[in-house]
């Protein structure tokens, strides 16, 4: 079991996150440092993580895919991906992992909107999430509540598939069509999310429109692409 954390400029939050996981669970922790110029790498190593330092910034998808490659090469059967900024509740790792270990799903995705939630989202973000929910449901038939969630667990089959095919930026929504194309079984699990301890969202207001256009476009293209 591998917990994978992509990190870019998170020297303040990465240490406590890694240390907390190490203290509570017997899992290996991998931090993929996406070319951060700050002390992210050193902080992660000090807290006991395996650290992969990318020599330059690949963006979130490229960093996460590096973790999939590592998991594939090292023979892990399951992988949980969480954020390094303290946004995801590490006590939710076992429930997210559970459907993978029991074999009930190929991918298990943590959702902020299932169950009781105190998570507040801004209006434009709600609009974006609604839009992607409909898009995912229309094309794949998957019923999802939180299509942009970056808190998920996958089994060996998806680790291997994603090692070859994973979007390089804004990968979460796109991942649904990839999973649909190979007939993966997905499941959502309620999770709690915190306001960020440090750092800011990778999505700026300026980039929001580009995000919508790019994700929608590559989603639709992936619907007619050949995989193999």
């Amino acid at each position: 079991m591998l917990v994978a954390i992509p990190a870019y400029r998170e020297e303040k939050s990465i240490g406590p996150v890694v240390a907390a996981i190490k203290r509570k669970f017997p899992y290996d922790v991998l931090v993929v440092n996406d070319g951060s110029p700050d002390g992210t790498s050193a902080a992660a190593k000090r807290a006991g993580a395996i650290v992969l330092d990318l020599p330059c910034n690949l963006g979130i998808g490229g960093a996460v895919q590096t973790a999939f490659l590592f998991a594939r090469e090292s023979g892990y059967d399951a992988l949980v991906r969480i954020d390094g900024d303290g946004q995801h509740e590490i006590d939710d790792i076992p429930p997210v992992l559970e459907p993978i270990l029991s074999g009930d799903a190929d991918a298990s995705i943590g959702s902020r909107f299932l169950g009781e939630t105190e998570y507040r989202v801004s209006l434009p973000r709600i609009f974006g999430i609604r839009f992607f929910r409909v898009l995912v449901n229309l094309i794949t038939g998957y019923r999802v509540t939180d299509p942009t969630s970056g808190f998920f667990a996958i089994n060996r089959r998806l680790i291997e598939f994603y090692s070859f095919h994973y979007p390089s930026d804004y990968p979460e929504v796109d991942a649904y069509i990839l999973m649909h194309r190979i007939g993966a079984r997905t499941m959502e699990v309620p999770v709690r999310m915190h306001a960020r301890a440090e750092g800011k969202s990778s999505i700026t207001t300026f980039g929001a429109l580009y995000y919508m256009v790019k994700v929608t476009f590559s989603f639709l293209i992936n619907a007619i692409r050949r995989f193999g």
Partner: protein
Amino acid sequence: MSRVTFLSVCMSVALLFYILEMVRRRRLREEYSILWLCGSLVILILSVKREWLEGLSLAAGIAYPPSFLFLVGILFIILILIHFSIAISKLHQMNKKIAQELALMQQERSSPGGPAAAPDRDTPATDPGDALKQQG
């Protein structure tokens, strides 16, 4: 439909399908195709909607509406070229850094105990200025 309309509709539709097919086959990445697609869509729309083209060219002070299409085409080509120049510069920077990291790693591996292997490198070699250069 005038001949010039027919010509520009044909060309923009052909370009649109060619770009889409290249993206589908992974010969062209999505992020590099978006400007091409926008450009050909705008030209297609203006070719079909003759009255929009006439309105726009009138507003821009262009007497012959179809030449407004050329202007739009050139504008998109300039945007695409700027986009490419930026992308190439970024790739150049990344390529240099990867080559340098690789050289350092090979040196560390071939001479254990050598000067480069002695201090425990626990932060990656990164230029502090990168914080400004790198975004996503």
